[in-house]
């Protein structure tokens, strides 16, 4: 494959649930870039970030720190990939992966990305403080079954993402999420799991937080992206600063659809994907999507 390929897309994952066996370690230059960005982020974000290490994979219990680490990891991957000659023709950010996608495309600076993550987190925290929310994943049921279970399990529940024809993310109040996961297991789901979060990301509940977050978004200067970024909300290409600002704000409380986004990228002629982050979750999900394409993690890149 040509390293600078018109059929190549970078995909930036959401925050990770583990950093063990991190794939970036095999990418030339990654470790140096990661430590450089950590040193920039530490005074900018929180000094504790300097304590992060891959042996203990600390901070997993802290949503904000986990988002910072994943963002830094993804930005280091972006820099390393580009320095190694991988130039994408477009990109997409899964959930909070959008911040790294914006950094990669030159829309925002690294430190502005940190500021946006912190702003979104604190705006959301005001809404969720003292309340108990949750998210969960269900694998093995189709959309019809999931919709029925969600509507029967509680008023706050929403399907907030679809990862494949048989994999979904739900968000809502904790008890309702647990009820739905039990019902899904009863219905024959092959796997159900609570996510390690206290926030119903991408649910309408977060709309008030988006209004506050919008002020932070509009306080920054956004540049034209060096390549189109695909929206996970409607699959459209984001090519202007204004469309990106709107996407960022809407990303907090709109349902996403990763499955449809991936299909759209394939329709657009993309046939090679690189997952630019600490996990292989999107690579695994891509195995359930029909089509002639290759999906790489950072530790198994094409030569």
């Amino acid at each position, binding site marked *: 494959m040509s390293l600078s390929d018109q059929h190549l897309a970078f995909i930036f994952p959401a925050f990770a649930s583990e950093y063990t066996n991190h794939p970036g370690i095999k990418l030339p230059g990654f470790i140096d870039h990661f430590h450089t960005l950590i040193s920039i982020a530490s005074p900018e974000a929180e000094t504790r970030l300097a304590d992060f290490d891959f042996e203990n994979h600390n901070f997993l219990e802290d949503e904000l720190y986990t988002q910072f680490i994943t963002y830094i990891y993804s930005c280091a991957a972006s820099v390393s990939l580009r320095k190694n000659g991988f130039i994408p023709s477009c990109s997409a950010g899964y959930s909070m992966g959008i911040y790294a996608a914006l950094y990669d495309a030159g829309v925002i600076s690294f430190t502005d990305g940190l500021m946006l993550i912190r702003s979104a987190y604190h705006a959301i925290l005001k809404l969720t403080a003292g309340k108990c929310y949750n998210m969960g994943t269900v*694998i*093995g*049921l*189709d959309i019809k*079954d999931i919709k029925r279970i969600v509507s029967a399990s509680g008023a706050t529940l929403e399907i907030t993402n679809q990862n494949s024809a*048989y994999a979904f993310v739900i968000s809502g109040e904790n008890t309702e999420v647990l009820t739905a996961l039990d019902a899904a*297991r009863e*219905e*024959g*789901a*092959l*796997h159900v799991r609570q996510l390690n979060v206290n926030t119903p990301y991408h649910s309408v509940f977060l709309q008030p937080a988006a209004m506050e977050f919008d002020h932070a978004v509009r306080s920054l200067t956004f540049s034209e992206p060096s390549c189109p970024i695909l929206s996970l909300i409607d699959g459209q290409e984001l090519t202007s600063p204004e469309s990106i600002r709107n996407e960022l704000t809407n990303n907090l409380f709109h349902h996403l659809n990763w499955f449809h986004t991936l299909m759209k990228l394939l329709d657009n002629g993309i046939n090679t994907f690189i997952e630019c982050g600490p996990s292989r979750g999107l690579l*695994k*999900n891509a*195995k*359930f999507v029909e089509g002639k394409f290759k999906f790489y993690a950072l530790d198994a890149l094409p030569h």
Partner: protein
Amino acid sequence: MARITENTKNEVREIVYSFFAEECEVDRSQINDNTNIIKDLDGDSLMFLELIEIFKKKYTLDIELKVIGKYAVKNPVATIGELIDMQLLIIEHEKRLLELEK
């Protein structure tokens, strides 16, 4: 209902062993029927789902995933050998898999 021959058994075994060796990046010689999929191979549910999809396509199986899910809840598998046995039952009984429970 499909008839399970020795050839089918060998084919299923070959696919399962090759699949986990590749997915879990372990030498095939390190896998046997007593190998625990999660503890020994660090396998996960997406691998199980992927394997089911492979067999659904290969044998043109008429069965919904949730039927397999319901069966798996009552008959959980932990080892490679148990997984092979379940795949053979799925191929043999397809959408009537749950009738084995009665």
